């Protein structure tokens, strides 16, 4: 039981990050019906951007008080979100809008996004570094257990708590944003039926731009969380990007709650299934098959529910 819970917490931590990134895919898919392949680079730029900002205030080996840590975390999330949003905005401007103007075929968008992805990831490598494992300064003991789950020996560490809590806060915030604000309504309107939305006076370009910005902010914040928990590099985006894309599809691409559920589920599945039955044997399947497990689960879900767990439609989500 202890082990199960430990894996579950690990899974939820990883899943929260997947979910945050998946939201970016799903939002863009909702309004454009396009996979934003460069979203992984938005995520990456969030990590680099927040590192530049956070690095100005803290340095390695500091021991900050809890409120200071909270402040730094907030700063990191904010700066990651800002940089992510800025990059996503530019991305839409450069790689999407001109193609929309020209009425490009659907795959052209995919390829321009791929081009952008190559470009951004290598530009970041050129400007900063190509080391595979940059680290944020260590200014508090991330791994100290915050609490023990009652009835078992399983613990939740500080960083796990921070990741899960901040992800949940952001997701709730997004959910409110999309369901309850004017911007949210216009996003849903464009997602449902862009021409009609335009007739209703919604500025499609602006709405798409803002959708990218929101998705980018979440992705950028996830970049900060990822970089703080693990490491960051110019090629960090690719694998989480693919997984988050899978998570978005798993939940039903275009569906906001679907992306959240898909992300969390994928993270949990990746940690729980290969290690089953959690008895110290290393698992029947084994961790080297983690990605295979993830994709097989995805395929199985899609075979039985061809539009994902919650189905499509951004508009219906809220």
């Amino acid at each position, binding site marked *: 039981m202890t082990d199960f819970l*430990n894996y579950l917490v690990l899974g939820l*931590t990883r899943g929260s990050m997947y979910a945050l990134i998946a939201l970016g895919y799903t939002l863009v898919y909702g309004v454009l019906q396009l996979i934003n392949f460069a979203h992984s680079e938005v995520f990456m730029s969030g990590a680099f951007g927040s590192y530049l900002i956070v690095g100005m205030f803290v340095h390695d080996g500091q021991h900050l008080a809890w409120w200071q840590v909270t402040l730094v975390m907030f700063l990191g999330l904010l700066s990651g979100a800002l940089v992510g949003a800025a990059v996503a905005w530019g991305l839409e401007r450069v790689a999407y809008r001109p193609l929309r103007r020209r009425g490009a075929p659907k795959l052209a968008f995919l390829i321009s996004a791929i081009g952008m992805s190559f470009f951004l990831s290598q530009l970041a490598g050129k400007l900063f570094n190509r*080391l595979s*494992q940059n680290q944020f300064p260590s200014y508090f003991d991330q791994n100290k257990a915050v609490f023990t789950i009652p009835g078992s020996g399983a613990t939740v560490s500080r960083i796990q708590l921070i990741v899960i809590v901040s992800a949940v806060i952001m997701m709730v915030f997004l959910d409110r944003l999309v369901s309850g604000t004017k911007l949210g309504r216009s996003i849903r309107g464009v997602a449902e039926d862009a021409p009609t939305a335009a007739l209703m006076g919604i500025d499609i370009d602006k709405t798409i731009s803002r959708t990218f910005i929101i998705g980018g902010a979440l992705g950028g914040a996830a970049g900060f969380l990822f970089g703080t928990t693990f490491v960051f590099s110019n090629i960090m985006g690719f694998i989480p990007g693919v997984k988050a894309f899978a998570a978005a599809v798993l939940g039903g691409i275009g569906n906001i709650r679907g992306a959240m559920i898909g992300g969390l589920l994928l993270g949990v599945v990746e940690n729980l299934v290969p290690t089953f039955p959690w008895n*110290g*044997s290393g698992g029947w399947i084994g961790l*080297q098959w983690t990605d295979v497990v993830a994709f097989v689960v995805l395929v199985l879900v899609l075979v039985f529910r061809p539009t994902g767990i919650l189905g499509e439609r951004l508009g219906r989500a809220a």
Partner: protein
Amino acid sequence: MRTRTLVNVAAMSAVGALALTACSNSTGGGGLSSSAGGGGGGTTYTVAFEGPLSGDNAQLGINEVNGVQLAIDQANAKKDLGFTVKLLKADDGGDASKAPAAAAQVLQDATVMGVVGPSFSGASKAVGKIYGAANLTIVNPSASNGTLQTLGFPTWHRVVPNDYAEGPAVADWMAKKFKKVFVVNDLSDYGAGVAGAVEKELKAKGVTVQTAGVDAKTTDYGAISQTVKQSGAQAMFYGGYDAQGALFAKALTAVGFPGARVAGNGVKSSVFTTGAGAAGNGWYFSCGCQDATVAPSAKDFTAAYTAKFNTPPSTYSPEAFDATNILLAAIKAAKAAGTVDRKSVNDQVSKTDFAGITGQIKFGPDGDLPAGTGTVNLYTQKDGKIISLGDVSKAS
């Protein structure tokens, strides 16, 4: 294959006679200034580096090519070679399928007298024959796969001990201390190789072994650390590289794995110590090498490297530095013996007995470091520094 060795060497001398460049002041004209004068120290030879300079594995290639560059610059600055050396960088992206083109690029330059690389075993397997057919000598600084020496590449040499030499030695040591070991590898050619060798030897010694693989591109080592801890193993062996090792070290500490942590040569580097920080303390490393960070010559190397590239030497930089110096010494010897061509240089490389910063290097008939000569040493990280514990077979 257009082998134009002789042809092009002849062409070279013709060029020298032409004195095409009397006194060019232009920048980047390494080839021009070198051909000035025609005689004396005028000849230019090229040392090629083949490895990943782009793509996901570029960092390893950059570590190595910096080592090569440093060796060449130092040699040119000393002016005692009797010839000038140039560096040719051939980028194979660490990809076996791109290696043949990189090799063709190296081979078509007739002044190339030797290759440092390819960085990876896969690329080495793809081009070993091609270089062999052209008599071009290979001094490999990093591809440690234990099968390379058996593939019959005629001009192949290696300055790092192979996985199979290192693995069993450290496994013997582990078998003395632990009864249950968890062996993790990074699913790379190197990692799977060394982990496999360790696993085999441990099992032979009657130790209970559990294994798992984690892709080297993973950043989240939570689940594997949890699994290692849960297995109740007394020790964990990691076959993989330093950067991933650092992440793994942190994750193991985070879950509170109580056992010993052991790793191969790939992990033992400053990247690991800085990356893992305190979590790296207490890790053991096996390495068939001298302690590069304490040997006096190595200290100079570290200082020069840091000064030149603004970053401390990293994985395989010292090996690449040594490999280059071996090549330069061989060209010099070939020149002293009469002819400098690819074949004579290869012959000289095979005869090498060289005191490098990673140890005394001497090649066996198969091009590998002979099993006996390289004693496998045990190291450990203590207070953020890697210190030597001496010969692993004698270590407690």
